[in-house]
């Protein structure tokens, strides 16, 4: 087994307590440790990407327990890409937080940051749906701390809402998992993929309920209508580097929808009849509209950017819901793009707002480096709105090109094109108000009640992250060909769910001695294991081995079936 697979989870998990306990009073040391950890994460994620680049699916069995009895981590091209995306974004936001001093405005920024990375990477890597819940909780509990970092009335109240909505979401997640377990008897994603297909359409009511509950939970994370309402308030009130990092959190939801939809509840499953896809499509269209109108109606800069994130998630989910290979490839390209676009906008906006009295869209005296900030904001805005030459244009173009089925073309094209237009208008209005109208405004004489805003120019280190994000967007547009080829590979793996199931359940799945006894006449691994470990050597021995039909039916048959098939593959 390749132990690097678990490194993206273990590395931040080790660094976070180290930073929290050893370096809590030394911000310089904490920064250094956080950078070392994030750079290490970047190196590992590049290595993982190279390892799976030729189409391998790598499986890591924790504790060497064979799937589906133990928890597995699975890396395919999609997971590797998401982990790489996380680590690049983490490096950008960490640089911004350290350069602007955000990390020193409250305690434990770096420790929480590392825990957040641990949760996000774990959610992208895990192959077990209950383990996905646990990693969701890890990333959420870290995000609660980051969300209210440095305090303030508005921020803590927004943070309280964020905590409440996500706790309710977690409860729903558990309800979904309970229903799923009750109807299938397993929580391993590969095993679920096999089991859900065996359910005949007339007995599918319970598993359909589980599917919709699960999709609702992921929709909360991905901010899809009708559960998108928490996002604008949270992102607008979070510290800007945290909001930039949160750009990947909505993608965790989108990733989970894609993974579970592709493997477990997809159109290939008789019991589902593509119900989740149809509902997601409607949700995606409405989300695009909400995002566009929000951008148009926002009166402050941070909510405006937050609404543009909602709109981009709507576009992404609309493409994912179609669930054809070309649409999913387009959606993945747009996913990479929109992550960096949202992060770039939040980081630039932070530099501007820190030099103004607040982030209201009103004419205020120009900040220092007004032209530079305006140029950066312009770059981020055209990326988010989907104008050439940055990758947003290509992303929306391929999505529109992929959504040409008669049933969806009208809704999808109208929503995405009109949404883009409204987004352009909203950003143009905001940009001209902040950067152009400001030049016509005289600075008031500073008083004690209204001191002059910060007039220090941004240092190169403060500008570097947002410029790097723009450069990445430009690179994504220039290298669209190679990137798309990689994404097509990822999509092919997603649609070939048998390869995933085989990799997890059958290839090298001996693990411990658990399935060793399957070849025996008794056909009972539990009894055999006891015998081998010496518990059964006192005379009762094999004769007492429980027969398979005395076990609760689904678990026993299950162990049987997998053991037999595993042996078959080995032969």
């Amino acid at each position, binding site marked *: 087994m390749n132990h690097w697979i678990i490194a993206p989870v273990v590395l931040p998990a080790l660094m976070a307590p180290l930073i929290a306990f050893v370096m809590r009073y030394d911000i310089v040391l904490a920064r250094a440790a956080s950078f070392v950890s994030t750079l290490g994460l970047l190196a590992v994620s590049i290595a993982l990407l190279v390892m799976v680049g030729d189409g391998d699916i790598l499986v890591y069995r924790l504790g060497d327990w064979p799937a589906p009895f133990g928890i597995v981590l699975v890396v395919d091209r999609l997971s590797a890409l998401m982990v790489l995306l996380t680590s690049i974004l983490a490096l950008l936001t960490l640089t911004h937080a350290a350069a602007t001093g955000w990390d020193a405005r409250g305690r434990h920024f770096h420790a929480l940051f590392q825990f957040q990375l641990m949760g996000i990477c774990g959610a992208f890597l895990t192959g077990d749906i*209950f383990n996905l819940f*646990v990693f969701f*909780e890890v990333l959420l*509990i870290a995000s*609660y701390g980051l969300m*209210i970092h440095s*305090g*303030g*009335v*508005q921020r*803590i*109240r*927004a*943070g*309280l*809402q964020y*905590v*409440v909505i996500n*706790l*309710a979401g*977690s*409860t729903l997640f*558990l*309800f979904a*998992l*309970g*229903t799923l*377990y*009750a109807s299938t008897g397993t*929580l391993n994603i590969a095993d679920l993929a096999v089991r859900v297909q065996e359910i005949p359409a007339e007995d599918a009511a319970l598993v359909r309920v589980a599917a919709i509950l699960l999709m609702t939970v992921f929709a909360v994370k991905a901010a899809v209508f009708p559960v998108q309402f928490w996002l*604008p*308030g949270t992102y*607008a*009130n979070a510290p800007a580097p945290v909001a930039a990092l949160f750009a990947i959190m909505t993608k965790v939801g989108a990733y989970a929808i894609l993974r579970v939809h592709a493997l477990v509840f997809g159109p290939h499953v008789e019991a589902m009849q593509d119900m989740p896809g149809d509902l997601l499509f409607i949700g995606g269209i409405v989300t695009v509209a909400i995002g566009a109108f929000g951008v148009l109606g*926002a*009166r*402050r800069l*941070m*909510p405006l950017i937050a609404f543009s994130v909602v709109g981009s998630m709507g576009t992404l989910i609309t493409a994912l819901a179609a669930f054809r290979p070309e649409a999913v490839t387009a959606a993945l390209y747009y996913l990479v793009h929109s992550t960096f676009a949202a992060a770039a906008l939040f980081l630039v906006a932070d530099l501007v707002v820190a030099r103004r*009295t*607040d*982030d*209201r869209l009103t004419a205020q005296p120009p900040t220092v480096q007004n032209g530079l900030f305006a140029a950066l904001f312009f770059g981020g805005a055209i990326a988010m709105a989907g104008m050439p030459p940055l990758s947003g244009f290509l992303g929306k173009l391929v999505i529109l090109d992929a959504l040409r089925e008669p049933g969806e073309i009208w809704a999808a094209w109208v929503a995405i094109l009109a949404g883009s237009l409204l987004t352009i208008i909203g950003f143009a209005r905001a940009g001209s108000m902040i950067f152009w109208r400001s030049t016509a405004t005289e600075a008031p004489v500073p008083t004690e009640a209204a001191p002059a805003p910060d007039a220090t120019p941004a240092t190169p280190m403060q500008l570097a992250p947002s410029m790097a994000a723009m450069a990445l967007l430009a690179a994504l547009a220039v290298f669209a060909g190679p990137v798309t080829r990689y994404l097509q590979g990822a999509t092919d793996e997603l649609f070939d769910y048998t390869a995933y199931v085989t990799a997890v359940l059958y290839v090298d799945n001996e693990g411990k001695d658990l399935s060793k006894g399957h070849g025996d006449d008794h056909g009972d691994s*539990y*009894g055999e294991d*006891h015998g081998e470990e010496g518990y*059964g050597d006192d005379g*009762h021995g094999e004769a*007492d*081995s*429980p027969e398979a039909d*005395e*076990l*609760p039916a689904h*678990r026993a048959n299950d162990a049987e079936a997998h053991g037999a098939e595993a042996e078959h593959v080995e032969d």
Partner: protein
Amino acid sequence: MELLVASAVGVLTAGGVYLILRLRAFPVILGLSLLSYAVNVFLFSSGGLAVNLPPILNKYAPDQAYTDPLPQALVLTAIVISFGMTALLVMVALGAYLESDTDKVDMDAPDASGDEETSK
């Protein structure tokens, strides 16, 4: 037995949802706790209800019957997580109450409240 457990889950969930919709910090915390109790009972029953049976396989027992141990492990995880989350929620709610002198969970629109704050 099934009726008892099912109605317990139902009543707890209904109470939890009602309390969350009160939109005051303390009822919301209680509501979320009730919801997490409901989901714990629900998870516990998802492996099938078996009375008086051990959650381990014992081949010396007369009939080798056992109750599914996996939901018990899941419930244990869920209890630990929801306990931690409730503690965190209490701290955040307390912070919000002390900072803003109100225990309302809902906020005005982000735009409007921002305007008020800066116009003061």
